[in-house]
Structure formats: structure tokens, C-alpha cells
């Protein structure tokens, strides 16, 4: 009979982890739908960025209130999850508080978990108030309607419930320890849950056991649920912030990549010795000419797609975007959310069609991101600077502009004029190159 709960636990654990692995594989498959790009330069700087930005949260604290609260939740979550290790061992082997032998260190750990749990609850409540009562501007932009808004709140509810369950479990356990209940090892310190425990003081031992076991089970099942909720949520950032800050750019923000395929063509064009009528070289890999720029997610590179999955929809980018601040349609956060949504759609299409993408008549450009948004960007890098996890919405905007201009000749008329001026007389205005030095004499 006793083994029943151990077996049940093992089944839930394996299912939870198994489902999680399935999601990770799907995630990595989708990210690899992006174009290959080799990112192996400057590894020391990349590791440093990951340590500082993801682990050290340096960019979060640029906005001190949100940053401070986020650090509480982040530290609380990581540290309290140490407890999960004990829960798993206890669950599998029917032990109870297996690490109790650590003595004072154990008491210290449990005590700190409790204090952190209380702090997390406080932080989560403040977060909820910021989103729903104060309604901070960046949380109520149009792209946040529906699922994104619910997702944000749902994460807060889940965190609240998990912390509450943890404290309830400890409170009941503490009360059982006081009652000398068999199997309940006397261990741990309960600086927070002792106050809840006083509510349990009139309960019988068997009721207390039910409370303790229920909280214990719900807590671990809740954690496994949360683990699998990640893939469907902006909360995925808790994992992807690490690779994303590692693969984020280590170049000056102003540097925009040069397209190599174009360099080849331009050099050929400018080479006076090139024979324009020469037969193209036989090269099977170059059968399909490369598409310039991006109109759909497969045209973006995998780092840009990783960016999309990492976005936590905090809206710091949008709240600092000059276009958005002046009422234009562009919102850098929406660029990232659209990219992820479309990537998910493409991924589901592939799943439904036995591993191959079947044209669904849709694409990122037009069906998700409009030209109006793309042309409103001033390429000022404010969004890139603001992102606490090193996402570049600008790089996606630039690649989509490239598609519009080079594949569709669909630049705004004034920009076409500007570009033909450059082509004809080497300046964006219609002045003769021979007059370039006239400013000296004026």
C-alpha cells in the first residue's frame, strides 16, 4: 500500500519531465528553422555577458523598483527550488525530510526558504498591483490584450499559490513535529510558517497529516505543471535568458551586418574584367538564388528566433521607442511577439504535415507585421539598449526592410527618391558630386 504513493509519484515525475523534454525538443526544432549563423567569436565576453546580464540581472535593476522585486522572485525561485531535490527524493523513496541530518545547516536552509517565500509573495502581489491596479502604461499596450495579459497574471497566481503551498506544508509539518507525530522528523526552522501553524493548533494529527500531504503533493505537482507551462508562456525567459544573453551581440550596437551574398554580386558588377555573358558556374548549392532580407520566420536567423522565444513581454523596449512614444503603430515588443506567434504557427504546420511545412498562404510580413510598423523605426537602438535579456527587435526590423526594398521595391516614395539620388550623384539630395567642395567658399 505504501508503495502506491511512491509509484504514483514516479509516474507523475516521469510524465512531467518527459513532457518537458518534448517541449524542449519542439522549441529547439523551431529555433533551428531559422537560417544558420555562426556565433563563436569573443567567447570570454559572451560568458561575461551571460553572467552579468542573465545571472547578475544587471539590466533589470536599471529600473530599480521592478528590478529589485524581480531579483527577489528570481533568487527566491532558484533557492527555494533546492527544496525540490529533497521533495523528489522523499517522494520516490518514501522518506521524509531526507536532508534533516544536515542539522543546523538544514534548519538554516529551511528558515531562509521560508523568508524568501514570504518575500516572493510580497513581490508577486506588488507585481499584480502594478499590472492590474496601477496599470503601468507598458503593460496595457494593444499587443498585450488577451492571452499575453492573462499569461502575465497567471504566472503571478501560480507563483503565489506555490509559495503558499510551501508555507502551508511547512506549517502543518511543524505542528506535526510538535505533536511528536511518527515519521515527521524533527527538523527545520519555521520563521514564517509558525504563524500559520498556530491556526492549526486545534487540529487532530490525522487532519494535519492530510493538510501536510495535500500541500506537499500540490506543491510538487504545481512545480511540474509550471515547468511545462513555460513553453506556452513568456515565462520561458527563465531558461532562455541564459543562452540569449550568451548569443546576443558583442559588437557596438550601431553595427549592422553586411550581407555577404550581396558583396559577391556587387564585386562582380564593379569588376571591369568580369564577363557579363559568362555562363554561371556550375554549383548545385546555388540553384536557388538567396532571398534578400526576411518576409517570414524561416528567413530570419536562429538567434533572432531565439530572441523571440526569450522575450518576456516586459515592454521596456516599447516604453522607450520614439515611434511608440509619439503614437505610431510600431512597438518593438510586438515585433518579437509576432515573430514568436508566427514561428509557433509554422511549427504546428510542420507537426501537422509530417515534418514538412506546407504553404499556408501567410507570412510574418503583412499578416503579422505591417509595413507601417517597419517604416516607423528610427533605428535608434533604444529598444536594444533597454532589453534586459539582450534581444534585438531592430535586427528583425532591418531584415524585413531589406526584403521590402530589395525583393519588392516597396520603399516609401520619398526613400526611393533619396536612393536614386545616391545612385545618380552620390548624395541623398539631388546635388552634383562635382559641387561637394563648394561649402568651403560659401
Amino acid at each position, binding site marked *: 500500500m505504501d508503495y502506491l504513493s511512491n509509484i504514483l509519484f514516479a509516474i507523475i515525475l516521469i510524465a512531467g519531465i518527459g513532457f518537458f523534454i518534448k517541449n524542449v525538443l519542439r522549441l529547439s526544432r523551431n529555433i533551428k528553422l531559422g537560417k544558420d549563423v555562426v556565433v563563436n567569436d569573443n567567447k570570454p565576453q559572451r560568458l561575461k555577458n551571460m553572467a552579468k546580464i542573465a545571472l547578475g540581472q544587471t539590466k533589470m535593476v536599471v529600473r530599480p523598483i521592478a528590478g529589485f522585486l524581480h531579483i527577489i522572485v528570481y533568487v527566491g525561485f532558484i533557492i527555494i527550488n533546492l527544496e525540490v531535490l529533497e521533495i523528489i527524493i522523499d517522494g520516490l523513496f518514501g522518506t521524509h525530510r531526507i536532508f534533516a541530518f544536515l542539522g543546523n545547516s538544514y534548519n538554516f536552509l529551511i528558515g531562509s526558504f521560508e523568508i524568501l517565500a514570504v518575500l516572493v509573495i510580497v513581490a508577486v502581489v506588488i507585481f499584480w498591483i502594478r499590472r492590474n491596479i496601477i496599470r503601468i502604461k507598458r503593460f496595457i499596450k494593444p499587443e498585450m490584450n488577451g492571452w499575453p495579459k492573462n499569461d502575465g497574471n497567471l504566472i503571478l497566481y501560480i507563483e503565489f499559490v506555490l509559495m503558499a503551498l510551501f508555507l502551508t506544508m511547512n506549517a502543518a509539518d511543524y505542528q506535526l513535529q510538535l505533536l511528536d507525530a511518527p515519521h515527521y522528523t524533527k527538523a527545520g526552522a519555521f520563521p514564517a510558517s509558525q504563524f500559520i501553524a498556530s491556526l492549526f493548533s486545534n487540529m487532530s494529527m490525522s487532519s494535519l497529516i492530510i493538510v501536510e500531504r495535500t500541500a506537499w503533493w500540490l506543491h510538487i505537482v504545481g512545480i511540474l505543471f509550471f515547468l511545462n507551462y513555460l513553453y506556452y508562456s513568456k515565462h520561458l525567459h527563465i531558461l532562455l535568458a541564459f543562452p540569449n544573453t550568451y548569443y546576443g551581440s558583442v*559588437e*557596438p*550596437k*550601431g*553595427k*549592422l551586418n*553586411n*550581407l555577404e551574398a*550581396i*558583396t559577391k*554580386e*556587387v*564585386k562582380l*558588377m*564593379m569588376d571591369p574584367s568580369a564577363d557579363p555573358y559568362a555562363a554561371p558556374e556550375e554549383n548545385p548549392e546555388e540553384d536557388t538564388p538567396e532571398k534578400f*532580407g526576411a518576409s517570414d520566420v524561416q528567413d530570419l536567423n536562429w538567434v533572432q528566433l531565439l530572441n523571440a522565444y526569450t522575450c518576456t513581454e516586459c515592454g521596456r523596449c516599447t516604453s*522607450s521607442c*520614439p*515611434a511608440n*512614444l*509619439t*503614437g*505610431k*503603430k*510600431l512597438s518593438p515588443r510586438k515585433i518579437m511577439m509576432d515573430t514568436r506567434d508566427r514561428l509557433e504557427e509554422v511549427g504546428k504546420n510542420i507537426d501537422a504535415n509530417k515534418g514538412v511545412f506546407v504553404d499556408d498562404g501567410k507570412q510574418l510580413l503583412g499578416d503579422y507585421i505591417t509595413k*507601417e510598423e517597419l*517604416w516607423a523605426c*528610427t*533605428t*535608434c*537602438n*533604444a529598444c*536594444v*539598449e533597454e532589453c534586459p535579456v539582450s534581444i534585438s527587435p531592430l535586427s528583425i526590423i*532591418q531584415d524585413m*526592410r*531589406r*526584403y*521590402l*526594398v*530589395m525583393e519588392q521595391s516597396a*520603399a*516609401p516614395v*520619398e*526613400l526611393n527618391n*533619396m*536612393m536614386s539620388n*545616391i*545612385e545618380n550623384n*552620390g*548624395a*541623398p*539630395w539631388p*546635388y552634383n558630386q562635382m*559641387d*561637394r*567642395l563648394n*561649402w*568651403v567658399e*560659401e
Partner: protein
Amino acid sequence: MSNDKLKVPTMEQCMAEGRQPEILFWVGSAGSFDDRAKKISRAFVKILNKANVDFAVLGTEESCTGDVAKRAGNEFLFQMQALMNIEILNGYEIKKIVTCDPHSFNCLKNEYPGLGGTYEVIHHTQFIQNLMASGKLNVTGSLYKGKRITFHDPCYLGRANNEYNAPREVLQKTTAEIVEMKRHKRTALCCGAGGAQMFKEPEKGDKDVNVLRTEDALSTAPNIIATGCPYCITMMTDGVKNKEKEDTVKVMDIAEIIAAAIEQ
């Protein structure tokens, strides 16, 4: 302004004289053709002449860097411009370039190397800072005493290339009072001209970016809005006009501010 004739040798002349100048002044399309920006070019040359800097320009051999085409999405046109310019720059064996335009600065510094054009590229505010630090240029007199100057960070100097201090240090030397806008340095708001916006009408919205940025600047009650970019100058000047403050608030490039001070 003084009527001293500006000395602006071209690379072609230097080559004919068999000498290699220390640095190339990349004037840029705005600096060559835009009426307002031409004044910045002249002011900067006044500084170069005053400090006896051995420089030259490409003159009619210079062409658009292609930066604005690249930002608009036309990588073809950008690379054509870049490769043409690189051929000329490498032909003259240029090692060091200074420019008053942060967009040219960024493009030459970060995007030309990948196409075979590697140079030491300096923004004019950095160059002026160096001249001052090495004692080659001194600002004396009290032209700006008691004046309030606020500095608007050009995106392609600041965020794009992390240079926030050079222009501020130069301004410090004028003894003016430097007042910062709420959004400055890392969080500075764009003037609205970047990413080829300079050459098109803005998208539909409830305000123009340059007006919002001008409000930022005016809230510091400045006598002068200083910046280091010809496009920012245009946008901020328009913003000040929009707010009908052109009689009390000047919009000036750092080079103009310093040139006026050394001419006293």
C-alpha cells in the same frame, strides 16, 4: 565669425605635393550640401586650422557612405557606395578619419571593415576633446559664462558607439553650465531622423519625435541645445521653431560652439 579664409586641402593636392596628411576629414553628404550642416563643416575646419591639424578632404572624390541606404534596407546600394569609397580611401592609404556625422562615423567605423576598409575613425567631438587634452586647442574668454547648455546625444554616437563623455567634456571647457535632460546618455530619446526618417514623412501618430525631444530639451530651460550630428541639428531646430522658441534658444553643433569661443 572671422573672415579668415579656410584652409581645406584635398587629398589630390596632397598627393601631388607628395605628402600624406595625418588625418582625413570625412565631410559627408550633409556637411557638403545641407545649408545648416555646411556651417558645421566650416566651424570644424576653423578648429582644425586653429590647432594646425594636418588634414585633408576627399572633395569631389567623396561620395555618400551609403549608410542611409543601408538603414532603409538597400544593402546593394550601400555596398556599391562602400566599395567605391573604400577603393578611393585605400588608394590614398588613409589610416585615420574624422567626421562630424555620427552616421558616417558609425558606418565607416563598424561596417566598412567587413568590406575591406579598416581605418581608425573618430567623431569630431572626440577629436576636439583630444585637441584640448593635448593642449593644441584652448578655449579662453567668457562667451558662454552663465549660459545653460543641454546636450542632446545623437543615437549613433551614444547608444550605437558608447560615446557619451567626449562631447560633455568639451562643453565643460566653455565654462557654461551643463544641464542634463531627464532622458540622456543611454536613455536619450532619438531626434526622429535616424533610420532614413530624415528623408521621408513620419508615419501616422499623435506627435512628431523631434517635437517630443525638443520638449525634453526645453524643460531644462537652456540657452543652447548642443548636439553633434547634422541631422539632429535639423530636427531640433525644427522642434524649437515649432515651439516658437527660436529667439531665445539656439541649436548648435559642438564644433560651432567651440569655433565661436576660440574666435573671440
